[in-house]
């Protein structure tokens, strides 16, 4: 089915690189290819923008995410509509000091979105990276080394079968106190959530990577590399990994979204961050009941989660193309 005439592309391009342009590094090539990918560039910019917004936004923005007005202010400031609402309903309660309005307790929505973004992005990215590392490691090892395959795949089966909720309960009981003692209550919950999401979501990645590795390691170029005495570690890092990058990238993009949403589900069930600690998922979740009354409260966190996932997706697309020597060579 696959033609035997296939050359080993990576070796080829490396050889060419050493011969023709010794000054150009491989990463320079990657960057050049990445730049030419418009979607990736746009995705990257957007992602950067979101990150900058949530990291530096709260520093310049005048409202505090956790401040609650009290007394008479409370009635005055709660349930404020976003300023653009005035376009079609000028009588609505709004104030330029609260550009996206306030929630039912009078907390500023924009401040909460920015603050929540920090947590959600941090959880999403950290958990995704952890899951990806674990998944790729297990997948590559079990695909490449036949001896490890049985054991690692049974381990994967075990993790797939474990019910998430009781596992979280056990972890919370075992580790929460000691973690919050050493790194504070919020830090402790963060580490706990990241680890839990990470170790409960690496299995599909591992299975997918293993499947691809099984196929790729029978290809001629791997055989060639092995026959010239390349060490397994080298074969994996130079020949196998670059070729299984695309499923890993897809897992990464989907992983961020899953992690952000899983976090909200955990908070919803009472295993997450303290209740006054906003995250995008929780903001979305809390607003669902009042969806028809205050659509902006579901729209904004929803849009932000989607935008993050979209931008990471395009970023991943570009990275995959850039890292793929066959495309880059053209």
């Amino acid at each position: 089915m696959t033609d035997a005439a296939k050359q080993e592309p990576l070796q080829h391009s490396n050889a060419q690189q050493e011969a023709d342009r010794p000054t150009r590094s491989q990463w320079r090539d990657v960057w050049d290819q990445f730049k030419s990918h418009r979607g990736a560039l746009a995705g990257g910019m957007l992602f950067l923008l979101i990150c900058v917004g949530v990291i530096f936004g709260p520093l310049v923005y005048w409202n505090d995410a956790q401040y609650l007005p009290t007394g008479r202010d409370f009635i005055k400031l709660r349930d404020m509509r976003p300023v653009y609402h005035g376009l079609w309903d000028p009588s609505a309660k709004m104030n330029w000091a609260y550009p996206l309005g306030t929630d039912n307790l009078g907390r500023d929505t924009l401040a909460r979105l920015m603050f929540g973004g920090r947590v959600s992005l941090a959880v999403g990215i950290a958990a995704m990276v952890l899951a990806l590392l674990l998944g790729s490691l297990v997948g590559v090892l079990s695909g490449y080394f036949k001896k490890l395959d049985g054991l690692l795949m049974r381990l994967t089966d075990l993790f797939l079968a474990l019910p998430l909720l009781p596992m979280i309960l056990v972890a919370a009981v075992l580790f929460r106190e000691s973690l919050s003692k050493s790194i504070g209550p919020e830090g402790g919950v963060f580490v706990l959530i990241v680890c839990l999401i990470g170790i409960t979501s690496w299995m599909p990645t591992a299975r997918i990577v293993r499947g691809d590795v099984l196929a790729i390691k029978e290809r001629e170029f791997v055989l060639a590399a092995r026959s010239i005495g390349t060490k397994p570690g080298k074969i994996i890092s130079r020949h196998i990994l670059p070729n299984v990058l695309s499923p890993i990238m897809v897992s990464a993009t989907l992983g961020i979204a899953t992690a952000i949403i899983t976090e909200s589900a955990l908070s919803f069930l009472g295993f997450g961050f303290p209740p006054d600690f906003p995250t995008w998922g929780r903001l979305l979740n809390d607003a669902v009941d009042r969806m028809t009354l205050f659509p902006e409260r579901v729209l904004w966190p929803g849009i932000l989660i989607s935008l993050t996932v979209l931008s990471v997706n395009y970023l991943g697309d570009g990275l995959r193309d850039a890292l793929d020597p066959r495309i880059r060579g053209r």
Partner: protein
Amino acid sequence: MNIKTLLMGAIATTALAPAAFAERGSDGQVNIIYWQAPSILNPFLSGGTKDVESASLVVEPLARYNSSGELVAWLVDEVPTTANGGASEDLTSITWKLKKGIKWSDGSDFTSADVKFTYEYCTHPEGGCAQVTKFEGVTSVDTPDDHTVVVNFGAPTPFPYGPFVGGESPILQKAQFSECMGAKAPECTEANFNPIGTGPFAVEEFKPNDVITFVANDQYRDASKPAFSRVLFKGGGDATAAGRAVLETGEFDYAWNLQLAPDVIAQMESAGKGKAVAGFGPLVERLMLNNTNPSPDLGPDDRSVVRPHPFLSDPAVYKAMSMAIDRELLVEIGYGKAGKVTCSWVPAPEAYAISPEGCNVQDIAGANAMLDAAGITDTDGDGVREKDGVPLKILYQTSTNAVRQDFQALIKQWWSEIGIETELRNINASVFFGGDPGSPDTFQKFYADVEMYANTFNGTDPQSYFGNGLCDKAPSPATQWQGENISRFCDEEFDALHAELSGTADMAKRVEIGQKLNTLVFEKGGMIPLVHRGRLSAHANTLGGIDLNVWDSELWNIADWHRAE
């Protein structure tokens, strides 16, 4: 002749009209939704509200509470009292006279043997009956004849209406359950899922944790009732969806216990398909104050066991904390018309309630002044007051629930304005309310300074509920953390008053003592009551006969429900 026929005709129409109007099963099907799904129809094996209420369509008690909290005869001719001779003068026995002619839905006769059997079934030591406290103090149940039941108590019992009264203690059919005694109780799936009862409906199909279909009971004692021929009883989902199905889409006729924010309810009601109704029992949302030291530095045997709390034991602190709270706002945010401001631990029956001055107003300045006067000031300039060098930092926990989290955020803000720093924690309800002694997060262990939840009692007599404030009921490792005195409140005066209450039969005197107990707990730092919560249920505009009852099953009068125009 002419006049005679006319008269005959008139008599015939008056006689026929009500009969034609209320014919059994003439109104078709009624759809009820409970967002917690019933898992068993034997209330003795579960005790969950959802199970007790769904079963109340089928099995009935001898007497039950009506919507204003009064006892009404149900399967008996009258409620026995000392006045009518039904209860003995020495308060050690009461005699129930069963109504004649009542039949089980399988056609057999309802007799006193069934009542006696129910007592034996629930008090069997291996049965694990959830309602066994209903039979506390009962030494024997005698059945002199088929329609007489005598309940004997071991000691004088001023309030003998525990056994066979209310939805939690209905009568089971002896013939059906006689093989299901003790350890065999859980194996009787068929009986537990399809109990035979005397109620207006009989089970057609029971799908555990999902849906129940009932059909009208042919043998029901009132030939014209129930008006509905079928009941579809759906369970599961969440309160929002249940509310939506009744108030917005009109798919269902009745939704139980809608714990939703008032603006959400109001928006759903505006669709015009139905309305929400509220009723008030003794349920109170409160902040429990830990009277012991919950510091994690203490060992497992001392944490939340040794007294006193480093700063919560100071009256200035807990009074200031209470003054800083705007209860009216909490009611408006969280419960709307299903909530009332209260400072009473037992707010209902109303006679027991107290209303200390200043309960309904927030006074941040006053709270600050009180703390300043007590010498609890911010000495190191970090915005948090210290008492004897201990900063006023509070861990405030509750179960996971949208309204409770809103309350937490508000109260945290108010306390921050009087120089008290608060850390919030919410815990999954199944862990928080579970009694697992291995978990650090249960409400009994109370590894926090303040915790919030709601509690209530059954029936109208608060004596045993007041007992939850007794010194020796405090949970500790020695009792496997069991015990109802969650705040570890301990006061000699309270204990003495409670002992006095147990020996008093005079109603006016009981109320007076009850008010004193209420005041003591509030003044001496046992708890900070927040909101007197009602039960909010919704019904479609086309459903008539609803009389929301918080003292008994909400579906207590389903036989009278009918289709309205």
